[in-house]
């Protein structure tokens, strides 16, 4: 059983953090992972920076640009992650765009992931059908879970299909929006959360986009199994640096 699947079984609401590899400093990748682990988060998404992150908002976009300027690249990320499993058992997911993976070679990429101990991938622009037709065996062979997104606009039928094709969790985009911190969730989002909940999917759902504090975390996880914080975390990291990680995570964890 994959570390992600194992984590999903735990009773409490999971807190997952997204950060961009090589940001703020090139060598920060592993220290950030360690600090997050220590602060008690449940899962980490490591962003592989991309020049044209078209599904990301300005904060993550800026961090990607900075990371690339710092010199981050795919091979280097793997080098940095080498030995990470000697340090932590936390589920690690690489989140990135498909083109760098394609250039690295999908097979080589998957193998490297296994080598360094990556548990899953989120590649927003690798659609389900292409994945299933061309890449699923490679992922499976390397013990990688591929995570798909759903949004408030995804038709139920397609949600079922995605549920069918997934075996880690479903990344539930909170609202039609590129990532970026929001003030809170409105009635529409709550109705959406409830609708998905009532579908009784086989995969747990982790909510992403728009979670920035204890409040929104609590709202997002009323029905879902957990939530992902991205932009709000990056923003904090930009302002406070790594020493801000523990207090930030504490602030989310404390009940509102």
């Amino acid at each position, binding site marked *: 059983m994959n570390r992600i699947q194992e984590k999903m079984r735990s009773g409490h609401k999971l807190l997952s953090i997204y950060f961009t590899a090589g940001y703020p400093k090139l060598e920060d990748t592993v220290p950030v992972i360690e600090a997050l682990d220590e602060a008690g988060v449940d899962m980490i998404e490591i962003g592989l920076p991309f020049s044209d*992150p078209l*599904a990301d908002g300005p904060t993550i976009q800026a961090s990607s640009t900075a990371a690339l300027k710092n010199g981050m690249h795919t091979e280097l990320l793997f080098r940095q992650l080498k030995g990470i499993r000697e340090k932590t058992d936390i589920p690690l997911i690489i989140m990135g765009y498909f*083109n760098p993976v394609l250039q690295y070679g999908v097979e080589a990429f998957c193998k490297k992931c296994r080598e360094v101990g990556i548990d899953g991938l989120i590649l927003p622009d690798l*659609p389900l059908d292409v994945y299933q037709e061309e890449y699923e065996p490679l992922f499976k062979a390397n013990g990688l879970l591929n995570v798909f997104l*759903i949004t408030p606009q*995804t038709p139920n039928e397609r949600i079922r299909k995605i549920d069918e094709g997934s075996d880690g969790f479903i990344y539930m985009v909170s609202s*039609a929006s590129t990532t970026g911190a929001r003030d809170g969730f409105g009635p529409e989002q709550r109705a959406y959360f409830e609708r998905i909940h009532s579908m009784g999917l086989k995969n747990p759902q982790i909510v992403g986009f728009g979670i920035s504090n204890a409040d929104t975390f609590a709202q997002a996880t009323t029905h879902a199994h957990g939530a992902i914080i991205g932009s709000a975390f990056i923003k904090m990291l930009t302002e406070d640096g790594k020493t801000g990680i523990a207090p930030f995570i504490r602030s989310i964890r404390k009940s509102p």
Partner: protein
Amino acid sequence: MKMNRYQADERGYYGEFGGAFIPEMLYPNTEELRQNYLRIMGEPDFQEEFRQLLRDYVGRPTPLYFAKRLSEKFKARIYLKREDLCHTGAHKVNNTIGQILMAKKLGKSRIIAETGAGQHGVATATVCALMGMECIVYMGEVDIARQAPNVARMKMLGAEVRPARSGSRTLKDATNEAIRDWINNPVNTHYIIGSVVGPHPYPDMVARFQAVISEEIKWQLKEKEGKEDPDYVVACVGGGSNAAGTYYHYLDNEQVGIIAVEAAGKGVDSGESAATSALGKVGIIHGSKTLLMQTGDGQITEPYSISAGLDYPGVGPMHAHLYKSGRADFIAITDDEAMAAGLMVSQLEGIIPAIETSHAFAIFDHRTFKPDDIIVINLSGRGDKDLQTYIDYFKL
């Protein structure tokens, strides 16, 4: 000969290129389009309104003009397809007319677009004014500066021009911003992509709207030369929409040579180029698998061309396939060659071409033709938007 070898298949693939590599957030939008575009385009009332606007509003058919002095100079029978005479000054409006009607059929009320040279932005702002729709155009900051007249036109037409400040601040980045907007506005908004790029069904849909160009060339050439088929069709390729329209009805007729002209910028190997076929490798950009200028690491390269409309690191999947399959002859033209060709055409034929188009006129130093070869060059746009660049370059 297998038919339709160079058209999109049902899933939007041209050979190995194309498809729809999009974030799930865009799935409903593109899916709605994919499921409906062929049906809507096939409806008689759609066709009627589309054709009527092309005729009465755009000014189609555009002439097929026998360029006497160019023909004398280069010793071949050179015809110019006068897309520069379209309303707004380029072929781009063929597509925006089609897409605005499509958007109406789909019940959309808000339009977004990206633009490089500004021609597509102007063409979009134009049809939005015509239909009374809200219009937001994303444009790279660099392009806003170098294509000021088109920015002014968009504003006059009531559109909002939003600067793209990331990356190279040119067309690719404007496209990223437009896609972001679409993700954020998935229900009421239609994204009018300006070329044969983006996820399926855009490349096929845009090519079909632009196909009117070669549809007209066929009967016009028949009138003038007694036959529908020229020896060569020639077009510049940015994303590839004017080229797709020019080639469309000739794709599967291998008697007709296809010449695609790309922007070499300061030279293919100068590091400042936009010659995608020469420099690109297979990759994903803006939802489409195609040839793409990128680092070994898969980061998209910042392209360079003096012409904003060719300054794009990818190329439509149709063209990637035409290149890979050898169906088309790709020629890369430098800034300097293009500018000289633009001046030449201005002074020989009294037509100032868009700098994009000027690239297509520079092929004569690279290929030789026979005196009775019939060559149709698509004059994709007029140079009004580029006057400052020409003036500065030639110190006129």
